[in-house]
């Protein structure tokens, strides 16, 4: 793929780079402006809790709609038809878990991190350490997948190819992301996500209308276009129903079931999603943010359905599969087909902005978890001399994470690491969600139970992935030429999620520790918002 130096044919790399540079320049100015009032830990981690529900909802969609869900889903629909659509439904329905069970209660009981909620009535140090390890693991898997994706996108959109060129771009992405986080803290990061979400949704809306207009606003004709382009007959018709990708064998069907469960339960356990609920002043605003997020994310996935079939019809699955970046190139190629190099440049810049906004969100979450849970509460046992030293540690951590992300992204750039996103969701669904639910709703739950479900979920997921066909023993495996796989599925969720719920229960009943008194406080606070963290007034 490195030989395709020109990127997408017909694209104008200079134009793409100019549009992208303009985005970076504008967002950096806004990040500087937003950072004026960043003084305390609450400002740095939670933007002073001053965002409104709608603003936070837009930022959540900006954080959540990663390059994988924009380029990946549109491309999957273009090439595999209906099966691509299945992902988007899991990603959307998942938000109901966050809305009904997590968002408001978390906002009422925590301060900055997931660890705050889990440690509320448990022994501080072991539970916070576990929460931080799980947060860092999920953030690292997700971050690495995004950084690696950046290398491929560069090749595709900017025409930068060759090892050195791609390495430089990965490093540039890492440096810009660290700048957003260091300078702007949560407030700056949130604004980057808001701007990116608006551009992404507006761009997708314009392309959707454009595609539909070409087919007289008749969705059925659009589908016919995709069927005809794919060669018509049974082969073309296969695009319209499920099974083209996952229906191959009994194992692949089971694999899809496993993925579907991890997607629907994982979202409400993703640390960077959870942290966003702390940026609003009240639980009611947290509720509003989820409502906005569900609306925007839902509409966006409806757009990708049209864009995916549109790319299948107007560009064709063959052209897409041969382009650099394969399925990821579907949306950019469709933009080129519709609006020429200018629209492609815009969509390319939006795709980059997407990666930047998502990695910045992950970085601030991971650095907050390290500084707040590990440094302030595990190492310093809650006795930090001043709040500014905690923020200083968070900033240093962000630098380290940036460096790790750049090195990891460069080392992994030619690897097939798509399984890392699925792994991040599986760990979030197995380690984080059961622990959060037990701790919010189960009176008897205790420290041992929390440690069992967190470490159990994390370890089972990682072990099953290592011994799965995603890592060895298949044609698409990360390590070629080796075969130590014994777990048949690429997605561990089907096993790890029930196991983790079971371990949380088992650990709890094995321990005599009772936390009912603290639970009384936690339950009252979580349901009423009494003594919840207030917004900072400047």
């Amino acid at each position, binding site marked *: 793929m490195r030989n395709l130096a020109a990127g997408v044919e017909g694209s104008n790399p200079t134009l793409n780079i100019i549009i992208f540079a303009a985005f970076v320049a504008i967002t950096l100015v806004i990040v500087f402006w937003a950072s004026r009032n960043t003084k305390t830990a609450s400002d740095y981690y939670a933007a002073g809790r001053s965002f409104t529900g709608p603003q936070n909802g837009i930022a959540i969609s900006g954080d959540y709609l990663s390059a994988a869900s924009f380029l990946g889903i549109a491309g999957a629909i273009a090439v595999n038809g209906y099966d691509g659509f299945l992902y988007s439904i899991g990603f959307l329905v998942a938000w109901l878990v966050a809305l009904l*069970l997590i968002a408001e209660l978390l906002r009422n009981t925590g301060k900055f991190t997931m660890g705050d909620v889990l440690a*509320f009535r448990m022994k501080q140090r072991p539970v916070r350490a576990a929460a931080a390890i799980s947060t860092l693991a999920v953030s690292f898997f997700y971050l690495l997948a995004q950084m690696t994706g950046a290398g491929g996108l560069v090749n595709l959109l900017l025409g930068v190819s060759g090892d050195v060129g791609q390495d430089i771009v990965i490093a540039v992405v890492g440096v810009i992301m660290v700048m957003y986080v260091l300078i702007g803290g949560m407030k700056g990061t949130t604004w980057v996500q808001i701007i990116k979400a608006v551009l992404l949704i507006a761009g997708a809306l314009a392309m959707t209308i454009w595609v539909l207009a070409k087919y007289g606003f008749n969705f059925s004709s659009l589908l016919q276009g995709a069927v005809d382009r794919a060669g018509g007959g049974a082969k073309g018709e296969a695009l319209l129903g499920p099974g083209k990708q996952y229906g191959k064998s009994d194992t692949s069907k089971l694999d899809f079931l496993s993925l579907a469960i991890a997607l629907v339960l994982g979202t409400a356990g993703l640390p960077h999603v959870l942290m966003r609920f702390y940026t609003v002043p009240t639980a009611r605003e947290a509720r509003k943010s989820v409502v906005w997020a569900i609306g925007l994310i839902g509409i966006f996935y409806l757009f990708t359905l049209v864009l995916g079939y549109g790319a299948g019809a107007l560009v064709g699955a063959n052209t897409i599969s041969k382009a650099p970046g394969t399925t990821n190139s579907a949306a950019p190629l469709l933009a080129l087909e519709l609006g020429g190099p200018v629209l492609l440049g815009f969509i390319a810049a939006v795709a980059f902005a997407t990666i930047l906004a998502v990695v910045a969100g992950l970085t601030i979450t991971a650095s907050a978890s390290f500084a707040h849970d590990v440094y302030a509460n595990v190492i310093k046992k809650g006795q930090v001399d001043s709040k500014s030293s905690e923020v200083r540690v968070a900033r240093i951590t962000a630098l380290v994470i940036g460096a790790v992300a750049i090195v990891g992204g460069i080392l992994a750039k030619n690897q097939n690491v798509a399984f890392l996103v699925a792994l991040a969701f599986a760990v979030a669904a197995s380690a984080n969600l059961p622990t959060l639910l037990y701790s919010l709703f189960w009176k008897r739950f205790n420290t041992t139970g929390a440690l069992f479900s967190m470490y159990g979920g994390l370890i089972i997921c990682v072990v099953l992935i290592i011994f799965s066909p995603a890592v060895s023993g298949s044609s698409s495996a990360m390590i070629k030429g080796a075969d130590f796989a014994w777990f048949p599925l690429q997605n561990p969720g089907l096993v790890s999620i029930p196991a983790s719920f079971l371990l949380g229960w088992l650990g709890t009943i094995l321990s005599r520790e009772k936390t009912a008194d603290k639970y009384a406080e936690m339950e009252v606070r979580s349901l009423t918002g009494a003594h919840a*963290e207030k917004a900072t007034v400047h």
Partner: protein
Amino acid sequence: MSTTDEGVGEGTGPDDDWRRVQESTEFAQLRRRLRVFVFPMTVLFLIWYLVYVLLADYAQGFMSTKLIGNFNVGLLIGLLQFVTTFLITWAYVRYANRKLDPIADKIRAEVEGDAQ
């Protein structure tokens, strides 16, 4: 208070005060109203989602049945997932605004008022 560093814990009463609120009939009502909505609703949407996933996974012929033009059962059920997600969101917000927030606000005012 060790759970949360300075700021949060200020003014919170000792554990038995929380116990007293937790055992009050008002709080019991708030908890019941929350759980009676969110638990069944969660079970409902998870089953509905799982039915959809299983149909897509194991009943591909049925899902590919065409209804109008190229619009088939799979697309219909898939789009219905969007519709139910939006509807459940709307129903929850309406329920929370009417049935949960007033009690929660009242208890919060009492708890925070007590502490001053």
